[in-house]
C-alpha cells in the first residue's frame, strides 16, 4: 500500500474518532483513500445503505428523486405532489429544468400543484379527493398531455390505492395518469425514487408515442435534465454530428418524446445513476444499445463525440471530426484564458448523480485537481467508475455528513468546494470558495462546447473573487 493511501487512511481514522462506537464502525465503511488500480481491498466504499439517524446526512428522499429529478422536468404533463403541502413547496422550481412553452397553458414546469392533505385525508383516505383533483385539473388545464401523481409519505402509510384511481381516470381522460409510489420513507435516498420513476415511465408511457419518420441516425438523449439549458447545449453537438435527437429525457421533454425513445437506434445516457434503469429495459425489450458519455470539459467531450460516432457510419465519423475541429480552437482559447488563473488549484466535490466523476475532466482541463469526491446517493457501480478518474490517495466519500465535510475541508485545504445549497453558506462563512454543483449556482449551461466557457468563467470567479480577501479572520 502506498504512502498516499496510508496517509489518507490515517486522516479518515482521525475524523471518525468523534463518532459514538456504532456509528463510527458504520461510517468507516463509507470513507476511503482512492486506489485507481482497484487492487487495494480496503479502498472500496460501501454505498446505497441507510444513513445513520442524527448524523446530518445531506441526502434527500425517494420523492425528491422521482418528482424533483425524473418526472418534474416533463413539461406537458401536470405533476401533482400528492400529500401534505411541504414537499411540493420546497421542491418548487428549484432545479431549473429549463423548457419552452407557455406555462399554465400547454406546459406546467414552474408550477406547484398539490392535493394539500388535511387531517381528514389521513383519517378517511385521500383517494376520493385525488379523483376530484384529477377532474378539476382536466377542466382547468385542457391542453395537458398527462398527469403524474407523486406520492408523499402518508399516501403509502394509510393504504390509499392511487393505482386504481389512476387506471379509472386515465380511461376517462384518454391520456396517461401515472401513479408514482415515491413516498419519502422508501429506500435510503433519492436513488430509489429515480428507479421507481423509471419503472413508471416503462409501465405507463414508453412505446406509446408517434414518430412520423425514422432514420438510421436517430438517438435519444437520456439522463439530462436541462439544468440551466444543459441538454440544449448537448443536443447542439449531437445534431451537428449529423444525429437526429428524437427524444430528450427528461429536461424539456414532452410525453411524446418519452414515449418514442423506443424508436432510437442508440440511447445516449449522461446521468447513469438516475436513468440507467430505463436504458437497460429498452436494451432488453427493444434491443436498443446504450452508451454512457461525458460532455463536461473539452477533453471528455472530444472523447465522447468520437466514441458516439464510432457507433455510426463514416459519414457521422467525418462530421464528428469536423465538429471537433470547429470548436477546438475556441476551447483552446478558453483554456488559455482561464487555466493560468486556476492551475494547481485543489477541488473538493460532494454532489450527486454523475457530477462527482463526470466533472473531474473539466476541472483538469483548467489545470485543477479533484482531491476529494463523493456521492450523496451513489451505488457501487458509480464508485467503480470513479476510482480510475482520481489520483491515488484522494478521498472518496459516500453519504458524507456535515461534520465530515467540515473536517475534510480543514485537513485537505481545498481551494474550492463544489457541493449543494445546504453546504454553500457554511463554506462562505469558512471563507472557502464554493460553487453549487447541483444547480450550477443559477448559472449554466455547463454541458458541451457552449457550456464549458461558462463553467470556466464560473470556476474562475469562484476561486479568484476578491471578496474572499475581505474576510477578517479571528486570530
Amino acid at each position: 500500500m502506498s504512502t498516499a493511501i496510508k496517509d489518507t487512511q490515517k486522516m479518515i481514522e482521525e475524523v471518525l474518532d468523534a463518532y459514538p462506537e456504532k456509528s463510527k464502525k458504520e461510517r468507516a465503511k463509507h470513507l476511503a483513500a482512492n486506489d485507481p488500480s482497484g487492487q487495494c481491498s480496503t479502498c472500496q466504499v460501501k454505498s446505497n445503505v441507510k444513513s445513520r439517524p442524527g448524523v446530518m446526512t445531506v441526502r434527500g428522499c425517494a420523492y425528491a428523486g422521482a418528482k424533483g429529478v425524473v418526472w418534474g422536468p416533463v413539461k406537458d404533463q401536470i405533476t401533482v405532489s400528492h400529500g401534505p403541502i411541504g414537499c411540493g413547496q420546497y421542491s418548487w422550481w428549484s432545479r431549473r429544468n429549463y423548457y419552452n412553452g407557455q406555462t399554465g397553458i400547454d406546459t406546467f414546469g414552474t408550477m406547484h400543484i398539490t392535493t394539500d392533505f388535511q387531517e381528514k385525508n389521513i383519517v378517511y383516505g385521500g383517494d376520493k379527493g385525488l379523483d376530484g383533483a384529477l377532474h378539476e385539473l382536466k377542466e382547468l388545464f385542457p391542453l395537458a398531455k398527462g398527469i403524474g401523481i407523486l406520492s408523499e409519505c402518508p399516501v403509502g402509510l394509510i393504504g390509499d390505492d392511487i393505482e386504481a384511481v389512476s387506471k379509472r381516470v386515465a380511461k376517462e381522460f384518454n391520456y396517461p395518469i401515472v401513479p408514482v409510489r415515491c413516498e419519502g420513507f422508501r429506500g435510503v435516498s433519492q436513488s430509489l425514487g429515480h428507479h421507481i420513476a423509471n419503472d413508471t415511465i416503462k409501465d405507463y408511457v414508453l412505446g406509446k408515442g408517434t414518430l412520423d419518420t425514422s432514420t438510421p441516425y436517430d438517438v435519444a438523449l437520456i439522463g439530462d435534465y436541462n439544468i440551466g439549458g444543459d441538454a440544449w447545449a448537448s443536443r447542439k453537438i449531437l445534431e451537428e454530428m449529423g444525429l437526429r435527437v428524437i427524444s430528450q429525457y427528461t429536461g424539456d421533454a414532452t410525453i411524446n418524446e418519452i414515449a418514442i425513445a423506443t424508436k432510437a437506434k442508440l440511447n445516449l445516457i449522461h446521468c447513469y445513476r438516475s436513468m440507467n434503469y430505463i436504458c437497460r429495459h429498452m436494451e432488453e425489450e427493444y434491443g436498443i444499445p446504450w452508451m454512457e458519455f461525458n460532455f463536461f470539459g473539452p477533453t471528455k467531450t472530444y472523447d465522447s463525440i468520437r466514441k458516439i460516432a464510432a457507433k455510426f457510419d463514416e459519414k457521422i465519423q467525418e462530421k464528428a471530426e469536423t465538429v471537433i475541429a470547429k470548436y477546438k480552437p475556441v476551447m483552446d482559447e478558453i483554456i488559455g484564458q482561464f487555466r493560468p488563473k486556476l492551475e494547481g488549484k485543489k477541488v473538493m466535490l460532494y454532489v450527486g448523480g454523475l457530477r462527482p466523476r463526470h466533472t473531474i475532466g473539466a476541472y483538469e482541463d483548467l489545470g485543477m485537481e479533484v482531491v476529494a469526491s463523493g456521492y450523496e446517493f451513489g451505488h457501487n457501480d458509480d464508485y467503480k467508475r470513479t476510482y480510475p478518474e482520481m489520483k491515488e490517495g484522494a478521498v472518496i466519500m459516500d453519504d458524507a455528513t456535515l461534520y465530515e465535510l467540515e473536517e475534510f475541508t480543514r485537513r485537505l485545504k481545498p481551494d474550492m468546494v463544489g457541493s449543494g445549497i445546504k453546504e454553500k453558506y457554511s463554506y462562505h462563512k469558512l471563507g472557502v470558495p464554493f460553487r453549487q454543483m447541483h444547480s450550477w449556482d443559477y448559472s449554466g449551461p455547463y454541458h458541451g462546447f457552449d457550456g464549458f466557457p461558462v463553467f470556466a468563467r464560473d470556476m474562475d470567479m469562484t476561486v479568484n473573487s476578491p471578496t474572499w480577501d475581505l474576510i477578517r479572520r479571528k486570530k
Partner: protein
Amino acid sequence: MIKIRDHNELFKQPDYQEQFERKKEFEKPWPKEKVREVSDWTKTKEYRDLNFKRENIKINPAKACQPLGAVFCASGFDGCMPFVQGAQGCVAYFRSHLSRHFKEPFAAISTSMTEDAAVFGGLNNMLEGLENTYALYKPKMIAVSTTCMAEVIGDDLNSYIKTSREKGVIPEDLPVPFAHTPSFVGSHIVGYDNMLKGILKTLSEGRSGEPNRKVNIIPGFDTYTGNYLEIKRLMALMGVEYTLLADVSETFDSPNTGEYKLYPGGTPLPEAMDAVNALGTIALQKYSTVKTMDYIKKEWNQQALTLSPIGIRNTDTFFEELSKLTGKPVPAAIEAERGRAVDAMVDSHPYVHGKRFALVGDPDQLLGMISLIMEMGGNPVHIVCTNGDKHFEAEATELLASSPFGVEGKVYINKDMWHMRSLLFTEPVDLLVGNSYAKFLVRDTGTPLLRIGFPLFDRHHLHRYPIIGYQGTLNLVTMIVNTVLDEMDRNTIDTTSFDVIR
C-alpha cells in the same frame, strides 16, 4: 477575448431558436392557435368561476408545512439543534429552503426513518439519532419536532425521549423539548407556534420565582432578520430590558469571520428559562403565536399582548402599550422617527393614493400591509391568504371596513396564487405584494411585484431591512413608492412623461 454567453443570452441566439423549432417534430405540441385560444380563455370571468369552484387541488399555494416553522423556531435558541423525527428528505428540504431565503447555513437533524420504522415505529431511530447528535454536534438543547411520517404511524415523542434518558444516550439534564407538528394540519406558522410552546414549557418548568423587570418579545414566524435587530434597537432606546423568544437574528445573519459556527447565536437558555418571571409578553404576530400566548396567559400569569407594529398606527399602539406595561415613556428619539416616517408618507402620497393593490402572504404580514397601504391612501383589493383561517378572514375584513380606502377589498382564505391569477386578469390592480413565487404572476399578468414575505429567493438581502416600527414603515414606503416610479418609467420611456423630477 471570446464573449462568454450563459443561459441568459445563449438560448436567444438563432442556432438555438432553430434547434427549438426542429425539436417540435418530436414534441408533438398543440397548434399555436389552440394554445392562444386556451391562453385567452384562462383570462376570462368564465375561467375564474371554474377556477374558484375547485376544492381538491391547490395550484401555486403560498404556505409551507408545520415542521419548517418548528425548525425555524428551534434554531433561535442558543446551542439548540433542531431535530426532526421522521423521513430524512423533509429535513434536506427545510435546510435548502431556509438557506435559499437567507443565504445562510442552516443545520438540522433527521432521524432518517425508512420502511422498517414505518412498521416497528421510530424509537430506535430516535435513540441512535439523539446519541449521534449529542456526540457530533454537542448541543445545549435538542428541540424535537415531527414529519408527517412519524405522525401517521403515531410515534410518541414524550415516551421516546423518556426512554432515551433512561438508556443514557443523552444526559439527564439536557433539555429536550418537543412538539408534534403534523404537516397535514395548519402550516409553517402553526409549527412555529407548537414548537415555541413546547420549548417554553420545558424551559420554564420549575423556574417560576422572583419577578424580573423584563418584557418578553415573541417575533413569531418572522423571516426579516432586520426586524430582530430593529426591535433590539428600539428596546434599548426605550430603556426596556427584554428577552427575545426566539431570537433567530444571528442564526440567519451572522458576520463572516472566516469561521463556521454551528450555533452562531440565539436566545440564551438561562434567559429563556427566566421568561416565566417577566413583567409581560408581547407577540409581534398573532396567527403564529396563538397557542403559545394562550399558554403564557394561563400558565405564566402574565400580561400577554399581541401587537404587530407594521404601519404608523399599529406602531403607535405598540409603543403606547409597551409604555403602559413598563411604565417607561416613549423617548423623543422614537417620536422623531415617527415624524420622519410620516413626513415621507406625506411626500410620497401622490404616487400611492388611489393605487390598487393585490396581496398574498402570511396572515400577520397581510394585516400589517393592508393597514399601511390604507394609511397611504392606497386601496387593498385582492387579499389572498392560503394559510388564513376564519379568524383571520374576519379580522382582515373588519380592518378593510374601518377605512374608506378598504371598500373594494375582499379577503380570500384557503386560496392560492392560481386564484390570484384569475383575480388579476378579471379585476386588474396596479401593484402586487407577495413572495418570489409571485413573479410567475408578473410574467402572466404584467402586474409589478413588491417582494415582501417569505420566501424571497430571487432578490438578495431584502430580509436584512426591517419592516416593523417607524423605521420599517419608512422602508416599506420607500419600496412601494419606488416600485410605482420604476413602473412609471418603464411605461413612459417612449413618451414625454419620462420625467426626471418626481
